């Protein structure tokens, strides 16, 4: 971590002359389009908050999960009809590097705040603002003591009561199983299989089923699937900071040939401010990549996902899980 930045230093007004002129140009443009994969409510909150701060700029967004966002963007970029100004994927950040011609190289010139941004959360074309970390979700009424480690899950009290997300439903989940295999060996996966798990395609359904009481525990899962239910009084809790904790980062990239390049820069810069984090972390889903925010703390044993699990390895994992 790279601490020490006072929140007032990242205030939009304090960015010096550059940010001043960017802001003027952005207001001139008056519009901004986001392409993002984050949860609908987070995107919505960001957009609203940004518009509160800059009422002159109206924000549209397009949300699609993972690769769907890439495909949509790629189609548009290939046909030269880019509508996105800011591109915020949550998976496979390599997409941006591999298609560098569609994006703008980032530096303090474009986003002044980057000058002080932690190195490990910054690349040539992207910087990461937030992380969503894997959790286990359990039902507080049926589970006496929450698991304290991943291995605690392999308990016969969960026999037939566990909901697992299908590794093949997305690379993020596949990554988690592969990290688990690396750390705990094949036994962990076969152990899961022996619990007679129910398989679902997304953590959302898993959380749903735990909330409804039909199952005890769901993993791998994400806070975004739980917080709404918790807020609505569902009898569930999440276990965080298990070792290891895979975290999915939200990256920010600026598109080349953006219709509103200045608004994009302004927004990117704004994302690093306290104001933005208030919006992003409002519902307690994200951890920030910097300190001094009200977000969830970044897990001590945070690991980045393995986005490219080789084919044979995938087949092996699927087989061990008995799918």
């Amino acid at each position: 971590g790279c601490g020490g930045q006072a929140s007032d230093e990242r205030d939009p007004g304090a960015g010096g002359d550059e940010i001043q002129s960017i802001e003027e140009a952005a207001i001139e443009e008056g519009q901004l389009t986001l392409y993002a994969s984050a949860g609908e409510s987070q995107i919505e909150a960001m957009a609203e908050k940004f518009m509160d701060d800059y009422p002159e700029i109206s924000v549209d967004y397009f949300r699609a999960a993972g690769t769907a966002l890439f495909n949509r963007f790629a189609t548009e970029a290939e046909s030269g009809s880019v509508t996105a100004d800011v591109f915020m994927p949550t998976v496979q950040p390599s997409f941006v590097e591999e298609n560098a011609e569609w994006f703008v190289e980032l530096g303090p010139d474009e986003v002044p705040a980057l000058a002080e941004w932690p190195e490990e959360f910054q690349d040539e074309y992207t910087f990461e603002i937030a992380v969503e970390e894997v959790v286990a979700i359990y039902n507080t009424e049926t589970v006496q003591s929450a698991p304290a480690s991943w291995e605690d899950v392999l308990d016969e009290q969960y026999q037939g009561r566990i909901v697992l997300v299908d590794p093949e439903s997305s690379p993020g989940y596949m990554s988690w199983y592969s990290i688990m295999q690396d750390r705990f060996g094949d036994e962990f996966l076969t152990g899961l299989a022996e619990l007679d798990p129910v398989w679902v395609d997304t953590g959302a359904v898993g959380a749903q089923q735990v909330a409804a009481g039909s199952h005890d525990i769901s993993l791998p899962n994400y806070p975004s699937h739980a917080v709404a239910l918790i807020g609505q009084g569902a009898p569930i809790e999440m276990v965080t900071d298990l070792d290891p904790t895979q975290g999915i980062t939200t990256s920010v990239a600026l598109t080349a040939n953006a219709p509103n390049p200045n608004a994009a820069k302004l927004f990117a810069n704004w994302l690093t401010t306290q104001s933005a984090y208030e919006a992003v972390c409002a519902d307690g889903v994200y951890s920030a990549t910097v300190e001094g925010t009200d977000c969830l703390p970044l897990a001590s044993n945070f690991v980045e996902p393995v986005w490219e699990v080789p084919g044979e390895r995938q087949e092996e994992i699927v087989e061990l899980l008995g799918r």
Partner: protein
Amino acid sequence: MVRVAVLIIAAALIVLLVYPIGRMVIRALFPEGGLDAGAFARVVSQPWFWPVLQDTFVVVGTSSVLALLIASVLAWLNERTDAGLGWLGTFMPLLPLLMPPIATAAGWVFLASPEVGFINGVLAYLPGNLSVNVLTIPGLIFVYTLELVPFAYIPISGALRNLDPSLEEASRVSGAGVIKTIFRVSLPAVSQAMTSAFFLLIVAGFALYSAPVVVGTNAGIDILSVRIVRLMQFTYPADLQSATVLATILLVVVLAAWLLQNVVTSRGRYAMISGRGSQVKIPLGRWRHVFRTGTIIYLLLTTLLPLLAVVIVAFQPFWTPVIDPSMFTMEHFERVLNRRNSVRALQTSVMLGLVGGAIAVAICVLINIAKRRTSFGSILGPRLARVVDGIMRLPAAFSAIVIALGFIVAFSGPPFNLNGTAAILLLCYLVNFMPQASTTVGNAMSQVGNDLTEASYMSHASERRTIGQVTVPLAIPGLLSAWALLFVLFAGEVAASTMLAGAQTPVIGFVLVEIWENGTVGPMAAFATVVTLITSSAVLLLVLLGRQRYRRR
């Protein structure tokens, strides 16, 4: 002038259909100018290929047969017996359409998911280990069947309505009972309509996206239509080639079904004798109430039950099989209605539905008028009219996914730059729903007998006056309900929308799938409830407007 307009429309239609699909196929299969036969081999050798094909054929095949059966029986009951439901019966085919198909499918997930489904919640209180599970192949077939029934009901009930009742009576006095009469006389006598209904079912079944995306995905059942979208969206880079190969398979299946239909219907050497409609209905005696109850139960099943489930989930803080009204909250509605995307989706879809529906009706009216053969010579020659007719019906052979795929390839970039605009959605919808539009408008217009227009000519009215004073006014009720139908179809479209809706133009279907796939069922249910409310009131309004105020003989 009309002729020029019609020719332009026909040409535009064919360009809008052939050009994108052609470009797509060429781009996928002739990447370097030569045919890349390897594409097929690659797709066929994928591990998922045969299971997808098998599941799709099993699901579509079985549900088409079931839908045909159910539709035939319902149509027969409603049109030919005294167990009909009167006005409710005539609305029957429209009722399931009032709810966006994806909401219906979601409703069934809410109702019949293992453990958490409402039905299972109720069954849990009953003795015995009863439970239902929609997340299975039979469950998927069930949802498919319900969504497909209207497609078959409309043509079959039309044919039965025109069936001379004495055909059935002749069978009765020849010594045949009611059951034998249905299966030996009533249904065979409308076998042509049943054949073409079956064709419609196959086409619609393969194109269906809502049920497999909602039910199939959760159940781990992979269906062709969803797989195509997945290939385009859930891998990067998009596997356009495989998607096109699958689309081509879809195309071949549908064309084969179409050919088969032509062979079967042309082999029927018999011609229908007189279509003397009549009020005489078969009395079913005691059975009347049984069948009427059955029909009502069916209606409840198809419309009210899933709607109820959706509404309950919309009010529940989170989805649970325990229904506790004291917990109900407006939270999801507030969330959805405060969300810019949802509100814009509502606006865009309603606008597209109203404007697009009106445009589609106008186009079809124009073409219909041009096709009419009068002594002036028709505006379109008979051969040209047949060609235009064919063009209008052609999109029926393509699934919405294929068409949308073609539109992305062809129109999103320069010189058109239609990506993410309302225009591309509108054009795609128009092309996609042209067969439905031309059929319903054609029906509406054909209810105006030739003699009525000829009487106008003989009253020295010009062609234009005849159209304005006689043809169109008489067709208005039919045209309004055609508009209502198209509104519903446009506003609830899912498959093409998932691929074409943009940041500035979110539409209902797209947003519903989005929220669903995001896993947040509460807001999805709330949104679906709002949409159902809007589409039903629009349809009701249009149908009421079209009510006939004069008595016809």
